[in-house]
């Protein structure tokens, strides 16, 4: 049997989700997204059901334009479903029940702020940090930002402006900004897209460490099947537009995982299976 079992994840619940934390972080009930109306209506997401327990790490893979990012935008409440329900932390997504950290596909750093100030932004906006920001921001929060930047190798660039950094460096800062406020729910939209193989693998490790350390719920959108397999404990495959989830399976490899693992036979077999599935639905 493959490392991917065919039992639905909701029934099985991966190792990451212990009984004590069986709360549901994200739930999509027949959530559908249609842009425009009438003849010009484009369905970005077919009615989709998805349940993600607290502390789970789910990777969404699928062909381009299949609605992966749309799901992220639904969960982060940047987009409202045309029909159906999106629950985050048991409430409507707009209620902001959970602390959300999001890394966008384009590392949208604010150009008038330094990297340090950009990464610090969530601390200025999100409670409980916001309450302390005015009074004691300088020392403690700056150390925090510098620590995190150090972890992704950007310690020396804290005072630089975004346009002074390379694409890969910006993506790393982007990841830092998503993590700085210790989110309960981490939404990652192809955060490692513009990185070279080595940096990418390094950051996989960093992300895995951070994940195992704090166990936030993670929803990762990616094109990279090895990335999905290495990081996630559950993988959903989406069909081409209009997108819907066609496969939902658990990755039964214990964490923490070593980077060498991605060359093991069972891992290669797993990614092969995923690859074939996506190749099928692209047609």
């Amino acid at each position: 049997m493959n490392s991917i079992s065919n039992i639905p994840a909701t029934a099985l619940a991966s190792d990451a989700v212990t009984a004590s934390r069986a709360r549901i972080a994200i739930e999509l009930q027949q959530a559908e997204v249609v842009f425009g109306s009438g003849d010009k209506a484009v369905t970005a997401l077919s009615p989709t059901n998805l349940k993600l327990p607290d502390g789970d790490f789910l990777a969404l893979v699928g062909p381009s334009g299949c609605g992966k990012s749309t799901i992220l935008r639904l969960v982060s409440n940047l987009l409202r479903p045309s029909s159906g329900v999106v629950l985050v932390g048991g409430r409507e997504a707009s209620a902001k029940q959970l602390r959300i950290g999001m890394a966008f596909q384009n590392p949208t750093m604010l150009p008038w702020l330094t990297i340090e100030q950009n990464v610090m932004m969530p601390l200025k906006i999100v409670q409980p940090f916001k309450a302390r920001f005015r009074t004691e921001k300088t020392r403690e929060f700056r150390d925090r930002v510098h620590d995190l930047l150090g972890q992704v190798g950007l310690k020396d660039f804290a005072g630089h402006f975004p346009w002074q950094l390379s694409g890969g460096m910006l993506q790393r800062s982007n990841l830092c900004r998503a993590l700085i406020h210790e989110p309960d729910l981490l939404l990652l939209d192809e955060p490692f897209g513009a990185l070279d193989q080595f940096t990418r693998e390094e950051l996989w490790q960093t992300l895995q460490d951070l994940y195992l350390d704090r166990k936030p719920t993670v929803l990762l959108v990616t094109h990279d099947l090895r990335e999905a397999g290495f990081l996630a404990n559950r993988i959903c495959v989406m069909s081409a537009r209009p997108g819907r989830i066609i496969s939902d399976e658990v990755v039964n490899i214990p964490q923490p995982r070593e980077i060498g693992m991605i060359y093991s036979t069972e891992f290669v077999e797993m990614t092969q299976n995923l690859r074939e599935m996506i190749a099928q639905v692209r047609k």
Partner: protein
Amino acid sequence: MTEQTRIRMLSFSLLFGFFATWEVLCILLDVSDLVLPRPTEIMVTLWVKFPILLPHILQTLYSTLTGFVLGVSIGVVLGVMVGTSKVAYAVAYPLLVGFSSIPKVAVVPIFVLWFGSGTTPAILTAMVICVFPIVVNIATGLATTEPDLEDVLKTLGASKSEILWNVGLPRTMPYFFAALKVAITLAFVGAVLSETVASNRGIGNVMMTASSNFQVSLVFAGLIILALLGVALYGLFSWLERRVTGWATRGNDLALS
């Protein structure tokens, strides 16, 4: 010699050359000082009359700056209102463009009619003349803010006003400063214009009175004062602009630290 000092020297020699040519031509062509006084004559007048001119200078500065501050404040509030709402932008923008194309000179008689002559119409004219560039630029800056930048804060659960403070307004700063530089020069035009028509104080009035008394060199002295004040205020805002919006021009003073 650095590039910057070279450019400064060139500007200075251009300015000096202009006045020198003026002086020489006046002497060579024997121009009457009732038509065009020589720069040296103007400088002497400026020096001699300075104690008398000073209160007028202060008066003009006062009217201009008061009008400018009022105009900018009103402009910012209106601009934020128009720029943050899609509906308001669509509805009000054409109106604003229409209003801003009215020659502001035409409002001076109305203000005089309402408020009499003196300081008030000068302040109001300066104010009215600099509201529109501010409104239009703030509104444009806010309305064209990239949604991606706002999304960053939206996902964090930021309120509308937090988004405005942290994304909208900083993003709009380059537009705002471009408008400020236009507005401060316009405010000068407005104040002086109103003084020439309806006031017994201020540089505008001095020039008007001097002109009717054929004190031509005093008229030119007034002109020079206006030019100096205008350049000084413009320079002040350019300096501020470089400090605040260096990120937009990737300014040198923000270079790698």
